[in-house]
Every structure is written in structure tokens, then in C-alpha cells.
């Protein structure tokens, strides 16, 4: 999946997101990187998964 959008703020990646990138070391993505839909995210102690209704699931 090509990351067109920032997973943290949902804005286009082309502008650069160093603060978001740093924050996402301790956060799962909330926006689909392909279409910027808000994803349904479930975190458990040992991991997380985030589901976009259009582009499927990301895990970490």
C-alpha cells in the first residue's frame, strides 16, 4: 500500500510529517494511508490492528 496520507493526522504525506512520524513510534495509525478514511483500531497489550473499510487491515 502506498502511503499517500499521514496515518496520524490524515493530511497528504507530500508535505512531510516529522512530528507525526515521531509520535507514531508510540501510536497506531488512525487514518488509512491510502485513502485517509478513519480506521477502526484495536490495541491489545502485545500489538494492534487497524481496519480500513476499503483497503483492509494493517497490523503492528
Amino acid at each position, binding site marked *: 500500500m502506498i502511503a499517500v496520507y499521514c496515518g496520524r493526522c490524515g493530511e497528504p504525506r507530500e508535505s512531510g510529517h516529522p512530528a507525526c512520524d515521531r509520535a507514531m513510534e508510540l501510536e497506531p495509525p488512525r487514518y488509512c494511508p491510502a485513502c485517509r478514511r478513519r480506521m477502526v483500531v*484495536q490495541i491489545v497489550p502485545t500489538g494492534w490492528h487497524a481496519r480500513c473499510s476499503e483497503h483492509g487491515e494493517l497490523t503492528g
Partner: protein
Amino acid sequence: MTDILEVARQQVLHDGTGLTEAQALECLELPDDRLDDLLQLAHEVRMRWCGPEVEVEGIVSVKTGGCPEDCHFCSQSGLFASPVRAAWLDIPSLVKAAVETAATGATEFCIVAAVRGPDARLMAQMREGVAAIKEAVDIQVAASLGMLTQEQVDELADMGIHRYNHNLETAKSYFPNVVTTHTWEERWETLRMVGAAGMEVCCGGIVGMGETNAQRAEFAAQLAVLEPDEVPLNFLNPRPGTPFGDLPVLAATEALKIVATFRLALPRTILRFAGGREITLGDLAARGVEGGINAVIVGNYLTTLGRPATEDLAMLSDLKMPIKALSQTL
């Protein structure tokens, strides 16, 4: 004037009597060059009154987002423009999370829901989920489901929930700046019922929400009156879209003073490192564990990620602090 740490050494370390509100404020306002002394005393108090064991816990959100309350720190409120979407965790996933948590060496597994209080659907989910966890794995199950009725307290006790978390969050005098959809007293009433029903009381809060040192001391004194079995200490991790989203992260030295002071105010409680410690303390977390902390949440939190459990367990091993065994908690 007598030095507050000399007073605390006699009163807290030797006699086991926690600091008063005024004394806690003195500790919080010690200059940074006294931080090492404060942490050292808090560590001695923890070792004397709690022992070297560290209680390890994992937490999971069974119902995420869409909360009707307006807790200004929380990205799960449905009243703010937060990117967190509502989600329910199914029973097999809940059991899997409990099994994976137990595999880290944790003895506690806390099931959390973002609600004002549980409805019939959530209580049914809890009954089924807790039974399935107890069937699958040996671990103590705790819960955090908001404000309860007496019937719900009794039902949770009957399910085998051994500890119930409900944070007062902050000092009574500052609470209206943090939450407006319910009162500090409503939270206190739930905690009173939980304790009376024989469940262990877990009650802490979040520091770094704009409260003053005087209000931190007030909060410590109010917790001392409650006498909770556990106090989780969270450090504000400002969440995008919330009213507190632009607040600065607490300075590490300030956070460590709070840890040590809460230990001196609550010498016998389980004092747990909870959310926000990664961004607040970074590599200084070990200083907190050597400054009064005797419990940790390992792995991820409810809406943010934590350090891998293996890193925290390695830190405890380096500090020669044994993980509390399940047999010690039963």
C-alpha cells in the same frame, strides 16, 4: 526549620505514616538538587513497607471510543474531534489478549471500557469474557467500566473481578477543569461501593493536566483518605483533538518528584507506572522504579502504544526487582 526529608524519614519510613497534604507540597517544591535524596527516601519507604516485588499488569480496551463523557484528556470521548473510532473487542480476542499478557509474567489483566457506566450488553460481555479468561489462563482479572450501581458492583464481585479501577483523575478542587459531565463525588461513591463489596480498590489519576503542585498534594491527601489498594499514576500524553491536546508534556524531574511524593503520602499502596511514562520519562523510567514505583503496566495502553513487555522486564531484572508471583496475589 526542620528539613522535610528528615521529617519524612522518621514519620513515613520508620513509623509508616504517610505525608500530610502540607508535607506533600513541601516535597513537591523541593529544588531539583534534592531530587536524588527524595527518590532515595521514597525507594527506602517502598522497600520497607511493600518489599522488592513489582506487580506487572496488562490492560485492554473491550469497548473503545464513543464515550458520552467529556474527560478533557481522553481521545475516546465522542464529544471531541478525535480520530479514535468506536470498536468492540470480541470474546476470543479478549481471551487471546489475556493469555498473551500472562505469558509476559503479568499477574493482572484489566478489562477497560470507555463508558459512563456499563449497560446490560457490556455486563453480559464481561460475564462471558471473564469466565472464558478464567477457563483459559491463570491471571487475576480486574475491570474499569466507569461508574457503577450497587447491583453492578455486586455482579462484578460475583464474576470474580478482584480489583476495580476507577480513577479520581485529579484533586477535587481541579476536577471541574477536567470533567464537566459528572462529578468527583459520583466517582468517589463508586469507589466506596467497590471497597465495601470486598473488591480491591484501584484509584489514581493523571498528572500534567495544568494542576498546581498544591493540587497534586491535595490529590495525594485525598487518595490517602480513600486508602486504595493500588494507585496508577498516569502522565498526560496530549491527544490530538482533545481540549488538553496542546498542553506541554510534564518535565521528567517534575514527574519524578510526583512519583516519590505519592509514595511518601501512600507508603503501603501499590503505586503503578501507567500511561504517558514513555514520553515523559524516556530512559529515566528506571529512576521512577527506584523512586517509589512498585508496579508497571507492560505493553500497550488503550489508545497508545507502550514499550515492549520484554524491555520493561529486562529493566526490572537489571534493577534486581522480582516480578510478583501469582501465588502472592491470591
